[in-house]
């Protein structure tokens, strides 16, 4: 397979920025609106409270498993995966 280190790094960086934006969204941005979100109730949970106690956490876990498989695909496609 053709090794393309440059393209590999630019795709890796692209994935990194996507992850950082999602990270900032679930770490900070969504919690700026806690008061508004708290007016919505799901199973007794005010949504703003729920996002900080579970929603963002679930998002982080899902993000990392997705990241891991996406990065693996990039490594493979650019021919730089480990054997």
């Amino acid at each position, binding site marked *: 397979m053709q090794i393309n280190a440059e393209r590999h790094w630019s795709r890796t960086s692209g994935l990194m920025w996507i992850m950082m934006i999602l990270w900032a969204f679930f770490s900070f941005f969504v919690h700026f609106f806690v*008061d508004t979100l708290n007016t919505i109730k799901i199973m007794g949970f005010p949504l703003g409270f729920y996002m900080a106690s579970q929603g*963002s956490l679930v998002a982080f*876990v899902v993000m990392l498993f997705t990241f*891991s498989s996406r990065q693996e695909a990039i490594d493979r496609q650019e021919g*730089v*995966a480990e054997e």
Partner: protein
Amino acid sequence: MATETKAGGGSFLDNLGKIYALYTGGFFAFVIILGILEQLGVPNKWIGYGFVFLTIAVYAVIGILSRTTDVGEYYVAGRSVPSVYNGMATGADWMSGASFVGMAGTLMLLGYDGLAFVLGWTGGYVLVAVLIAPFLRKFGAYTVPDFFAARYGGGFARFLAVLVLISCSFTYVVAQIYACGLIASRFLDIDFTIAVYAGLAGILMCSMLGGMKAVTWTQVAQYIVLIVAYLTPVIILSAKKYGIPIPQLTYGQAIAEITNLESSMISKGLADAKTLKPHIKPFTTYDPLNFFALIFCLMVGTASLPHILMRYFTTPTIREARSSVAWSLFFIFLLYFTAPAYAAFSKLEVFTLIEKGTKLTDLPAWMYTYGKLGLVKVCNVDVKVVQDIVAACGKIANHPGLLRWQDLNINTDVIVLSTPEIAGMPYVIAGLVAAGGLAAAMSTADGLLLAIANALSHDIYFKMVNPNAPSATRLIVSRILLVLVAIAAAYVASTKPADILSMVAWAFSLAAAGIFPALVLGVWWKRANTPGALIGMIFGFGVCMYYLVGTRYFAVSFHEMWSWLGTATPAATAKFAELKAAWVAAAPGAAKDAAFLALDKHAQTIASWWGVRNISAALFGLPVGFLTIFIVSLLTPAPSKAVMDMVDATRLPSGDLIMQEKGAMVGGH
């Protein structure tokens, strides 16, 4: 890149699933047997001893079976730990005694604002996975300072990294050993000092003979104990209360009930509308700036703590290093997304008690159990003797003689420890919780001790003092240093140093400011060079340390110098001037000291830059670190081609590890 199978390790590594399934089954059987013994009338004390000594004995046996004479196994577990198991080990490494015991209590007292800790201690793993872990794994270092040395021109960078590492890890390990002593002494009635040294012995058995290899396999075992212990009581509670054994779903109803009880308590005069912090209302303790600053500093700190980063040196491949971070977060998530449920159930229990109008003479038994230990107070006296409480509350004007929320003071450690008793579960569950708390404290202590001792033995002794030391000597030196560091930490813990324990929160900001910028830019910005990184580390760490020490220990002069950047109200500023005048006027001697104490105490509440709390000092240290590296790097010549090529190689998963050590049997050949 196949990892070599080590003699003796192969059969163990091939059968990990079976071995740990058997271990988990055995642990459940053990809990059931103790439960039966309890029903047969065996005293609680024996049940407690059974839990603590047997679990510690099992960890010690794992530690001894994992002994090694190979440098690669000692430092990085032979790079043979599969990602799921490394995830569990990281979970145990990460979740401290305080997280296990104190987190739910903090969430109960702070409500929404406490969730800053839940977010901060999980989201940091995104940074670890994306920005750091896979590259450090490719680098093939034994310690985090190894990377600094290779990327930023050797000895001095290594030395700075070791300095940051020790300054953030030592106070942290003292707190873990202290927690071991506290849990053992509370539950087993062992003398605190003896408990500390017993904990120390247990910790050393897990780490001394086998280094990282032994710590890894004991941490996996400890994770299983701690997560079972954390989840069991709250699952039972949820099933009892709402018929569904999934507390994470059912506590929404508890929150709704809490909100109703809050207004009812206020209308009945059993809670003070001014001091009651509604559970779901944001920003009652921290203002938005401090809430988000705290989340940010905890996250970046997580991604910079060496005892966490070094866990990702142990996976067989870079791919597994990445997925291992995901697994770590998953296993950590299991505890952190349950903690708010604990908090809600306990708060509901306490609020129900208060709202129905409980007489001071009818306080429940669990308050006395923990009151005797000084952990539950009513009207500022320990809940020990009924008459004392009634007398103390009687002195408060218009006291109704009923328990009020503002009279009650519950230590945050009580929530998790008391839940089994409050819910009327058998003592065996309480013993299980104690064993879980010990596992959490011990496993974190193990990881931290190893990080410190390895920095001293590998980075200072081997790389700087005696580079020609043969492997056997290196391992002997490592073990001696491990024991010395452990004894020093246990000694400090046995003196119950309030200052050191309050400094634990500093670890995150110090690690973030000192390590994160140079580490991340070292991989992601080729142009970062040695002078930039060195000056950036010194400035970032320096600013952070200045802010921490200044606002805490030199608050008066800090406030005077920086009052123009502070956010003190006119009233607070006036009070400062008044106290200062009183101090200046006071006669030398005891009066002057007392006046200074009052002044200093007040100054600590107002000494700040823009009102940022001391715990979030990295909010300043981090940007200073990044900016300094940028500016100084651009003003000085670019790194050599060799360094640039090395960075390129670090970015590619394929190819050999960057640092290869002669003679060490480490994968990647």
